[in-house]
């Protein structure tokens, strides 16, 4: 991945409300051409962090630069933001509202309308362009909101819970658009508490819990770091007697699977070879016990995500 340039640089930011430390000493960088996940349970400080990046709230200490400078009128135009609590003007037509919001991002009148229309067509919403927002279904409204976020061709988009409330079909549509945006070199910050999405989409991530930064790095790297010296198997046989296996427990995440903890000097390859060479075993599943982000999350944050 070409980590060509830095889109966001957050350095040691902290923010307190009275005695409550909402964010404490958080640092990270987001690069162009990647999806960066901002993970954490509700109330962890994700929204406060985003608001500080967007210059809605000032940090008590620390430094933030967006596209190379503190956020200003020029960089605001290169930034798209989709807040968690979505809202649209209800009583104006879709195209009119998009035109207005586009112009506020520096587009000309003609450009705003042209791009809005093109995006609506892409999202197969062209036929509702003249309809009032209040007449659209919820899924349609969410797609319109997404279109508003990217219509001015930003370099950086910040999305709070991108998939909440989307049906599977529209989820796919939005996901493809995000991938397309990333492929063109755009930077995406995705704030979420849905771990599967991060595993599936994000290149790098940071995890915040109770205002503290717990994890930071590439997603695969973090998962590998938390990988146990164990494998997950499904099949038949007395796993305790298998060479290299230290102990066996049933996998907490799967009904039929067993978690085999290995001896210090045994590798997974050795175990697989042992299974293959013995007639006493047959397997239908064999994988490294790399924890899901959810498990890491529980381990790190000491609390359950939703």
């Amino acid at each position, binding site marked *: 991945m070409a980590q060509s340039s830095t889109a966001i640089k957050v350095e040691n930011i902290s923010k307190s409300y009275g005695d409550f430390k909402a964010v404490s000493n958080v640092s990270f960088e987001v690069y162009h051409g990647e999806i960066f996940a901002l993970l954490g349970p509700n109330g962890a400080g994700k929204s406060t962090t985003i608001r500080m990046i967007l210059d809605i709230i000032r940090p008590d200490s620390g430094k933030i630069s967006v596209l190379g400078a503190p956020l200003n009128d020029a960089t605001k135009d290169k930034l798209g933001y989709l807040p968690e609590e979505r809202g649209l*003007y209800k009583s104006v037509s879709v195209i009119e509202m998009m035109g207005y919001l586009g112009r506020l991002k520096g587009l000309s009148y003609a450009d705003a309308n042209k791009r809005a229309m093109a995006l609506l067509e892409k999202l197969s919403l062209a036929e509702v362009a003249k309809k009032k927002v209040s007449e659209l279904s919820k899924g349609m409204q969410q797609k319109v909101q997404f279109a508003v976020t990217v219509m001015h061709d930003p370099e950086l988009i910040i999305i709070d819970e991108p998939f909440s409330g989307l049906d599977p079909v529209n989820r796919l549509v939005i996901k493809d658009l995000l991938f397309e945006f990333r492929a063109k070199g755009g930077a995406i910050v995705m704030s979420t508490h849905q771990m599967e999405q991060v595993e599936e989409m994000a290149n790098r991530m940071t995890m915040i819990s109770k205002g503290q930064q717990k994890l930071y790095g590439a997603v695969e790297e973090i998962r590998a770091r938390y990988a146990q010296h164990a494998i997950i198997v499904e099949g038949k046989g007395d796993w305790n007697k298998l060479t290299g296996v230290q102990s066996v427990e049933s996998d907490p995440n799967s009904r039929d699977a067993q978690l085999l903890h290995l001896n210090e000097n045994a590798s997974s390859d050795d175990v697989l070879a042992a299974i293959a060479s013995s007639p006493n075993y047959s397997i239908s599943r064999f994988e490294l016990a790399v924890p899901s982000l959810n498990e890491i999350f529980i381990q790190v944050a000491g609390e359950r995500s939703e």
Partner: protein
Amino acid sequence: MGRLWIVARHEFLTNLRKRSFLFAVFGLPLLLLGIFAVVGFATSLAFSSSDITGENVGYVDEIGVLSLALEKPEGFNPIADAETASASLEAGEIEGYFIVGDAYVNTGNIPFYAKGAVSDELEDIISAFVVRNVVSQTNSTLPEDLLENPARMTVFLENTGRMVSRDAFVVLFIIPLVFVMLFMMALQFSSGFLMSSVVEEKSNRIMELLITSVTPAQLLGGKIIGLGGLGLVQIGAWVLFSVVGFFLFQNTEVLQGVVLPVDLIVVAALYFFLNFFLYGSLMAGIGAVVDSEQESRQIAGILSLVLVLPLFFLTQFFTDPDTNPIVLFLSYFPFSSGLAMLLRMTFGVVGIGELALSLGISLAATIFITWASAKVFRWGLLLYGKKITLRELWRVIRGKSDMSFTAPQSAEAK
């Protein structure tokens, strides 16, 4: 600066098409016009039932100004007292009678009792007769202003008892009053729109999106300009209607002698400008800190009451527009001075100095409130589900709140 105009244009255009606005512009004047038409029609019916000729008119002179009966018109005859005159009118011996008595000394009013309408010619004849005799009184005990402005005719219809002033009552009183009411309505409408647009953006969370595109100052300024422009359109349309209507019906009896109250229009425009900023920014500030449409409506309702406070003291404005302490207070208190001054100009005479002082206070208050509201506005934009105390607001206004939003950043970034 460009963003501010984009916001202004958007607010102007979207609200222009709202049904409530269209009704305010076209519906209200039509409604008022309808009411006037009905009243005028009923009045004219009452008058036209029988027109008196003036060939046989009685008069009761209770104060002796007509004792010489200089240049007494033909058909005018003195009657000893009001009771006899009333009986004669009842019996049909005379067409009507007028009384020159205490009411005349105090107010210049001459009540005329008749069963039908009194023509302008007859009124002029009566006035001329009274005036001719009043001015001849060399050793007069009459008040001086009575000599300057000797007679004002008030006609009473004997059969209904309803008073119908001929002294252009409509012109002096109702037209400015209607105008003042329309002005207040325009103010309420546009500042109300301002508040609800803030509350809408806040409650549907589009605010979060907006402030990553514009600064709070651009947003507030754009809204005030856009909706202020809308208020001007509203007033402009009403003035246009009035002028067109005035020229269309200029020659009808009702509007004869009516002059457009130009001074009122100019002063009203000044107050509208100031009051719109005052109430508009206040409503926007409140819109930014309240949590729901409902709550904002309640507060807007209270503010509207303050705005029309002078109407509760209409009697004082009518009877004593120049010295009554309540009247004076209301005409300098910035939240009511617009309406109060317009009422005073309607009922009395307001000096330039007083007007300047009232406008000056209004200007100072407007500047302060706009400034304070802007601070509260930027602070409250993203505040949800929290009750704000007045103490907190005061801290925000003094710039001591710990939830600090950024100052306009462009200067600092460049």
